[in-house]
């Protein structure tokens, strides 16, 4: 066996090792009940509960934004996000938050929103010349 082959095998080994290890970095999209039962850090997909008030009082604390979110199973929980309220949040179609459950609240530090494509919703005939 030559050196490069040995090296190649070593790298494949390393790749396998990393692959096994990286599986810890990977999770499925979860829901609130799973977050409660495992207590783990997870990503939850859901939609904003638009009937409930958004709570962002930058005068008091600009780092805490609270809102209610329904996960894909229809479970509703309050999310405590340690970020400023994102722009256009009210219009989001889907939300993905990363964090964990504590005392019936979901503490998140990452958020991704899917917003309706900028202009898709608007009708052409609404855009009359002003």
């Amino acid at each position: 066996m030559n050196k490069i082959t040995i090296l190649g095998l070593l790298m494949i080994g390393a790749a396998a090792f990393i692959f096994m290890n990286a599986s810890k970095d990977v999770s499925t999209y979860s829901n609130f009940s799973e977050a409660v039962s495992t207590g783990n850090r997870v990503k939850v997909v859901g939609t904003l509960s638009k009937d409930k008030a958004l709570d962002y009082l930058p005068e008091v604390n600009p780092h805490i934004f609270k809102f209610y979110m329904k996960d894909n199973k229809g479970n509703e929980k309050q999310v405590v996000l340690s970020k400023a309220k994102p722009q256009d949040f009210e219009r989001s179609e889907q939300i993905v938050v990363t964090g964990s459950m504590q005392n019936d609240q979901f503490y998140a530090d990452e958020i991704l929103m899917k917003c309706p494509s900028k202009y898709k919703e608007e009708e052409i005939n609404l855009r009359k010349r002003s």
Partner: protein
Amino acid sequence: MEQINYIGESLWIGHLSKAYIFGAFVTALLSLVSYFVSFYAKTESEKVSWHRIGKLSYILHGTFILSLLILMLYAMVTQRYEYSYVFDHVSGDLPLKYILSAFWEGQEGSFILWMFWHVVIGFVLIYRNDAWNTIVMATLAFAELWLISMLLGIHIDFAGYHFKLGSNPMMLLRDINAAPIFSNADYLSLIKGRGLNPLLQNYWMTIHPPFIFAAFALSIVPFGYAIAALLQKNYTEWLRPVLPWALLTAAILGISLIMGSLWAYEALSFGGYWAWDPVENTSLVPWIILVAGIHTNLMSKATARGTRSTFIFYLSGFLMIVYSTLLTRSGILGDTSAHAFTEMGLEWQLTFFLLSFLLPGLALLIYRYRKIPVPVKEEAIYSREFWMYVGSLVLFFSAVLINSASSLPVFNAIMRYFDAGYIGKVIRDPIEHYNKYQLWIAVFTGLLSGLSVWLFYRISEIQWRPLITRLSFHMLVAVILTWLTSLWISLPQWHFYLLGFASWFTVSSNAEYLIRHARNHTKMTASAISHMGFGIMAVGILASGLNFSYLSNPFVFKGLFGGDGDEEKYVQLIKSKPLLIKDYIVTYERDTLIDKARFYDVSFKQIEMKGNQMKVIDSFITRPNAVYANDFSKIAAFNPDTRHYAGKDIFTCVVSLPAAVSDSEQAKAIEDSLQYIAYKLLPGDTVSLNEAVLTIDGINYRPRHSEYALHRHDIGFEIRYHITDKTGKREDGLCAIGLDGNILYKYPGKHENFGIKIRPAESLIDGLLTPEEQLNYKTFTVKKDESFAFNGYTLRITGFDKETDTLRYSAEPGDIGISGLVEVGSKDTAYLVKPIFVLRGNAPMSIKDYIPETGLHIRLSRIDPTTGEFEIKVAEDKRGNLLLPVEIAKDVPRTDYIILEAKIFPGINLYWLGSIMMMVGLLVSWYFQYRERKRWT
């Protein structure tokens, strides 16, 4: 259905562009076929003539593409909104300088940009016409065939399935939308374009896409050469001509990556320069693979080793570009990426595009793999080629890791194809994940590039002592520099020390190499520049990426999120109120609206305490801004502003604004929710509001409210007041009401510090101003300078003025007008008024003047030139006692603050310097290889 004859459409543009697209498709196909026939032709004359047909059809194809590009730009510049692409990307208020950005904002435009570069490259290849030309050109034509097919816009219904082949950008808007407006023949006069996304209205959007697509287009050339070499069974001679192309591709792609990084950092609110976003990753991966290919290419040119790997790398480089196109354009990345294109429904076509290059390429490589020569004798462990090979494998390994992780959404999509209920997998914390593994790649890259420069190709003997001495020296330098680095920035774990060491090692080692060879072997300096750049970049990342800090009040949060406590990231800045943050006094000074962006001036004063003396050691202003949506209804995005220093950057970005400021709908909701309480007050009266007391001071008959002046008014009144609190803090205020014709405008007084808003009630006007029809005019017939009395006032015409334009009257053509100068005297004051007499045609008109303080209305209603007599009409407002009606709301939310994120990035310039050096090295190498090849051919 009734046929409508639409007004103002330029249908020829659509017809012509369809002809161009179709022509470009046919000629690309013809070119591809001809080049292939030429390649497999038996006789030399057949080869030559088919080659010529291939060449001519490619030139024709290029002409079609260029014409299409010009035609579409023409339609965009002239705003032909009947075409969907123009409607989607242009608007009347879009400055002409952004027309190119608007052109390649959409998928179709960017495909054309890509094809444009293929055309340019094709012309260069045709001009050079080397031994590999036929197949390289055939590959290019094949890619063009696919790309132009994306614009065909043909719909096929077959066996119950609906296929869409491409999407034509020059479709008529009314053909693809069924809106009621299209029943109007003159619909074009009613619509305006959607315009360019305000986020993309900056110069980055003008320069970044041409670079990235030039790189995309260039990457097919190494691919084409590899295919040509495999088909021509000539496995070694292509290594020389392909090298400059690969170097240029890697340089341009790398420059595009740096530009994207700069764009994200300078102009977007991502708060950093690299986020391991799948869109970024899929452009980085081909770059890494190409760089690995360049290493094996250099090596195989010198030692005949690594030829097979060069094939693999160059083939997969282009394939990864197509793969990244598939990822960013198909919508598959969905919620894992912040900036992919919007979907166009072409994911299957893109998949076949990829497969049509992947499968034949792979088959050919496997079929010919054994034939690719490999030297019999194994390389020595101390030879340069061995360690370069190891380096290439490390790079390839890195590409595999990045690509596997960013391909998770693809994996999920495939699984879901077989099992609809499959629950997709996702990386929980992507940035952490990538950093963790790529750190080791960087360590190996640093060590290998620092070591291998001192080794030689094809040696069987080595002198160990000088090598060991030299390496030990550079390791010592690296240890010292790493230690110094650790004094400057914090390296929290041992592997960061290791990365620091590896980086400084390659910097030091390559610096010596550079100094030694700069004079005699200029060509050799290229790799040293790139490798030093790599080390410097890695140190820059350690400094700026690992050691950035927030300019905020630390650790208020402790414990809330379980761990040691999160650092506060943002600060609330109230206008004109200085705030001490760490050693800076930060003040939000003012805001200014420029075009579609509101700029916030934030001043920073760095202070130092010397004993009891406070000294300002540095002072600067940043201007982050908020961009409004095209219709100004809300704020669409925030853009940062950064203060640059040699050793650090201070990055500032607004992250949030008061709801009433950022969205007009919410502003209305908030205003509606305020509870105004009505009062009727006399001057001197007071009202208690929470902790504060409001006192009415009186009335102004000529309002001074700052917003009142911005509008036209016939008449207005204003209430003066002041507010004080227990501590004696006092604010004076004004609230005004103004009348323009029949429209009433209110100008409230707002007191952010007290949470109070006060506005006059409409009845203020009624109490002061009697409507015209209820006035009792008294008529006087007088001569000039003759005094007369009215309700205790003495009036007199003192003269006349030809200047008649006032707020109440502007002359129309044919008007004959004159204003009388009437002096009105009361006990203590005199006023001068200018009532106007106008003859319009034969009809006399009188335009009154008004003295708000006295409530006198004065008209000049008749002029008799024969007798020199004038008719003056005077009336007085029926004013009662001066009860001022006001409405006051308390607990009004503040609107005069910003939430600011301020970040300090130490050493970020090392990152930019290092990454630019890497590309400079590639360009230098390209230049020398290009010159060398010229000499050989």
